[in-house]
């Protein structure tokens, strides 16, 4: 399902399309996350059985769902859960991954061997499956989902930072800096860390896309926040049985997930391209 798009690339090949549209869309999502009531006057969990399964109209822009809830309102409020899960999971993964990777790359030897082995074990499970295993211990729910998703993508960050630490520590300018007589701590903070972790924000941005997809996928499977929480993935799952008679219940949340991930990926890649361009 979700796949990381962080790939080594050269700048001129990463001219991603529609950056402005992507930024604008993410701005709207951000507003939906922070102040959903700005975008809609409806209550996302207020059901009106008499208004169920109405097609999109001027009153209900995205129609109403099987319980007569406003789909647009649910999509808008849903941003909060999807973004919360995605951002928190990636944050956990990025911070712990960076620390682990830096430790492995700098300490080398036994510490590196131990950390790398553990990462190997963790990453030999496809990440969604790892999340599923973790959830089967902890049970479903938002915070469990965040922790499981975050833990599963730690290796992704740790490996990049570790490899980068090796590269930077062996690079010409660090060797050169050693000849200046700089202290080791100075060397690490001044010359190694900034470069070893330089890619982390980009990785995190691109990881956010896959985290959002994974979170929605797990909610789709019934492992996300409990109903009636308007989470995008569980909206999709709920609407799936109504696809033949009321496509709008599942199509809108799916479209919004896709556009959000697309925007995040497009911007992340643009950033990556600019970064690689600077590096080249």
């Amino acid at each position, binding site marked *: 399902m979700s796949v990381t798009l962080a790939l080594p690339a050269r700048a001129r090949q990463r001219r991603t399309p529609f950056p402005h549209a992507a930024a604008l869309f993410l701005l709207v999502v951000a507003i939906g996350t922070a102040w959903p009531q700005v975008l809609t006057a409806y209550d996302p969990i207020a059901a009106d059985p008499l208004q169920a399964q109405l097609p999109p109209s001027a009153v209900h822009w995205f129609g109403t769902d099987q319980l007569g809830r406003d789909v647009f309102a649910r999509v808008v409020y849903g941003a909060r859960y999807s973004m919360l899960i995605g951002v928190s999971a990636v944050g956990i993964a990025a911070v712990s991954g960076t620390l682990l990777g830096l430790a492995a790359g700098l300490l080398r030897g036994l510490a590196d061997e131990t950390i790398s082995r553990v990462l190997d074990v963790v990453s030999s499970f496809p990440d969604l499956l790892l999340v599923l295993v973790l959830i089967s211990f902890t049970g479903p729910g938002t915070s469990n989902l965040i922790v499981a998703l975050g833990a599963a993508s730690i290796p992704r960050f740790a490996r990049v930072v570790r490899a980068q630490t090796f590269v930077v520590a062996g*690079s*010409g*300018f660090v*060797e*050169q*800096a*050693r*000849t*200046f*007589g*700089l*202290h080791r701590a*100075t060397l690490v903070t*001044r*010359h190694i860390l*900034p*470069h070893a972790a330089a890619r982390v924000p980009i990785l995190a941005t691109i990881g956010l896309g896959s985290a959002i997809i994974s979170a929605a996928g797990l909610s789709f499977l019934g492992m996300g926040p409990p109903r009636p929480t308007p989470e995008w993935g569980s909206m999709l799952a709920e609407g799936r049985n109504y696809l033949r008679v009321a496509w709008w219940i599942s199509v809108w949340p799916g479209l919004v997930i896709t556009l959000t991930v697309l925007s995040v990926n497009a911007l992340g890649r643009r950033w990556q391209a600019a970064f690689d361009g*600077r*590096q080249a």
Partner: protein
Amino acid sequence: MLVDIHNLIIGFDGTEVVRGLDLTIQRGEIVALVGESGSGKSVTARSLVGLAGPGARVTADRFIIDGADVTRFRERDWRALRGRKIGFVLQDALVSLDPLRRIGQQLADASRGRASRAEGAALLASVGMRDAERRLVQYPHQLSGGLRQRALIATAIAQDPALVIADEPTTALDATVQKQILDLLRQRRRAGQTLLLISHDLAIVADLADRVLVMRDGEVVEHGPTAHILSAPAHPYTRRLLDAIPSPRSRGTQLTTGQRLLPKRIDPLHVVLEARHLVKRYGRDQVAAVDDVSFTLAAGEALGIVGESGSGKTTVARIVLGLVEPDDGRVELAGQPWSALSEPERRLHRAGIQFIAQDALSSFDPRYDVGRIVGETLDAVGVFGAARRRRVLEVLDAVRLGPSFLDRHPRELSGGQRQRVAIARAFAPRPRLLVADEPVSALDVSIQAQILDLLAELQATSGTSLLFISHDLGVVQHLTDRVLVMKEGRVVESGEVGSVLARPRHPYTQALLEALPSLPARVRQPDPVLERSAS
């Protein structure tokens, strides 16, 4: 006439990289295109096979190859011509042959599937490869550099083309191997092969080409018979190129101006660096990369270490710098232990020994601007604030870079400018010893000349000792006072530059000297046009 080109213009995105070039090649003749990087020589050569590159606009008043007007050629016409009429040899066969296919397969590809195994073997034999049968099933990376280059030449002649274009065919090779390849090309010439030779090195073409075209910024500045051009160059640029080539004759003078250098202040009694019986082994088999190497370096003196790739010269430099611990032997600085110190102890003395690497760009933290780069070495000597700024400007000025460079980023600089920044950084803390590892080998010859002049000048004025590592005998004999010749980790010969190179005793030294292409003598004319400012 095999090739007849009149008024060739090649442009990319509206920028003309070749302008008004005329080129004729007669059958059986060797023509050389000589120029520095950016002169347009390579793209000219590539346009002859219709591969000037994506987006290239190639126009000419006349462009005839073997009687065919190629100005009307479409891609399929070009494909018919490539390989059959013109064979193409690039530099460094490690990357110019498909690394994932066997030599035999590539010979078959090159002959468009027509060459049988036996013919393939014969082709390899014809470029002087023994064991041809065995080579056919090998991959490029399994061959040595020289054999690889021969295999590449074999693919170029697989369809027996009338013309072979060789674009820098020896640039990536060690001097002795380079000589073998040049000998091979000479043989083919004797066999009647027409050759277009592309090179940045006038010396290489000197005894190979019949005619030379000297290119600069997309234009031919001078052309004529090789002997004539080399002995009596008419254009100032040609003269400058020739002057820039370091040689025994250029010792003690500036390459760019021909003026005498300042005298060095060598104090033979004051030993700055002493290495005793250095040994360094690598790998599981403990092969000695450095095997019992000893030398001393006096204050103000320049010591050259010369050797081909794999001779261990870089490892010696790294041991001296304290970046690698020797397995045996020791290094002393000014009579004090150095290699025996722990790293924290060594840190206190590091300001006195500075390093210039071959690749200046990778020795700079990419986030730093020139001011921070140059200033960083001053951390160790405790110079901060206004004093640091003063010193940085001072050394930048010494390497002919103005204050405007302070906040420039190294990526925006040219190769020569970057090396100047590296030199400025190295001199900033007023070191007693400077270790320079191939500092000019990635540079064009005219830039190389500027850097060598600068190094010589700064060394003389500062009295700093210099340990100079190079594969280039010419550079070493121009710049240094004494020389160590290394081969396979050992010092095979050492002594005063003049005496070692004039009367080499070790066969390896002799072979190195023989492999140096020689330029015919010419009357040296001082150049009225001063070197352009580096900025």
